[in-house]
């Protein structure tokens, strides 16, 4: 067994959330550049230039890209040969969130669903654990803003709807979302498993880098096809019109029940933030 200190996990989580919120990925910046070069709308180009400038300011000042610094979502893979010492794992992660959002001047967006009273430290985090082979801990911090999350949906399609039904569901969802989720968006699609598994797959799909195609060549083709259909909707950056409505579409697919065809669409705004560390 390899021992990992809870304090190290706390520090890592703290740093990851500050980093993710202040430093936009190069893959996203490159996607903005492609939109600036190819979009037919002058207004779209202007919005994309603003987003680039915004990312530059955020990086220089180490201030958040967007004021919605999200609920703190994490994917945590624990090697089965790891023993966490010096504290409880979940508590250590939540402490890291508390520190990151406090010391990083990030907005605290967690509140009670009915009273709407703010928890004031952005906890509890939404943590998805997985046990994997090895003796490492891999932590992926995915701050998730509310505006785009609100546009996400799960549907239990009839198996007869097939792949075409899935494609239509995704394109219609993005069309109905319009300007709300801060386009250009990234679209995470989870297909298969159960009701909750499809949603988790869709969330996990959003942790890929822009342009990173599915390992399955057939699915890779479908991703590109759906992206092209979305970008024909005309919504454009901020919904002001244009050809850059989404930057990418990612599918994650698993087997499902013979009676079911679960499909989840998790919408992500252009501030697509995810940073990882391995301890």
């Amino acid at each position, binding site marked *: 067994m390899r021992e990992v200190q809870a304090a190290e996990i706390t520090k890592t989580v703290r740093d990851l959330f500050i980093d993710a919120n202040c430093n936009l990925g190069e893959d996203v910046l490159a996607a903005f550049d492609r939109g600036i070069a190819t979009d037919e709308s002058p*207004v779209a180009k202007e919005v994309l230039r603003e987003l680039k400038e915004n990312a530059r300011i955020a990086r220089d000042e180490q201030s958040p*890209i*967007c004021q919605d610094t999200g609920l703190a979502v994490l994917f945590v893979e624990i090697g089965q040969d790891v023993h966490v010492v010096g504290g409880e794992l979940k508590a250590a992660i939540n402490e890291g969130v508390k520190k990151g959002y406090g010391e990083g001047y990030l*907005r605290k967006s967690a509140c009670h669903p009915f009273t709407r009273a703010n928890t004031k430290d952005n906890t509890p985090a939404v943590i998805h654990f997985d046990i994997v082979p090895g003796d490492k801990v891999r932590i992926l911090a995915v701050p998730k803003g509310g*505006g785009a999350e609100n546009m996400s949906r799960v549907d239990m399609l009839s198996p007869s709807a097939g792949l075409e039904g899935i494609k239509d569901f995704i394109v219609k969802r993005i069309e109905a979302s319009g*300007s709300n989720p*801060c386009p250009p968006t990234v679209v995470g699609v989870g297909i298969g498993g159960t009701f909750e598994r499809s949603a988790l797959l869709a969330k996990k799909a959003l942790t890929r880098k822009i342009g990173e195609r599915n390992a399955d060549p057939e699915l890779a083709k479908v991703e590109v096809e759906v992206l092209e259909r979305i970008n024909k909707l*005309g919504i454009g950056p*901020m919904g002001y019109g244009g050809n850059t409505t989404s930057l990418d579409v990612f599918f994650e697919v698993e087997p499902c029940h013979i009676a079911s065809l679960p499909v989840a669409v998790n919408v992500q705004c252009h501030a697509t933030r995810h940073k990882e560390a391995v301890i």
Partner: protein
Amino acid sequence: MAEIKLRTPLTDKDVEKLKIGDKVLLTGVIYTGRDAAHKRLYDLILAGKELPIDIRGQVIYYVGPAPAKPGKPIGSAGPTTSYRMDAFAPKLMELGLKGMIGKGNRGTEVVEAMKKYKAIYFGATGGAGALLARSIKKAETIAWEDLGPEAIQRMEVEDFPVVVINDTKGNDLYVEGAKKYRKA
């Protein structure tokens, strides 16, 4: 695109000349307000009580800013999605609200209220919170500190960049923009 400079508070004359797609630079005082603050404003109105701000001619910015770093007036402060304020917006326009800044589509009843009461829905670039914060020179909480990022703040802005999404004639930039570039 021509840029129109406007100073708050806004008059009927100011807003009636605006049309969708116009780029406007706002200077003066604006107030922040999002979900929880709107609910409280609305409840006060229904109870016939006084509001913490005189709403006449004012502009409400749908935003919950990030905390200010030392030496800065405000943290990142871009718009939040506006439809969640739809249930409350017509009442505020009836009382004299002249402008709303946010992002995302508004409901029919809000667009109708903008025609009826002469008000404008401005869009600011969503997710450009670090950039937009540069146009905010001063910010202070004036009501409901307990709401944290949702408290009402009085902001002094200079050339705050917005685009007209819905004008006083019932036009909608989102509808026209998508129509122009749709290929399917």
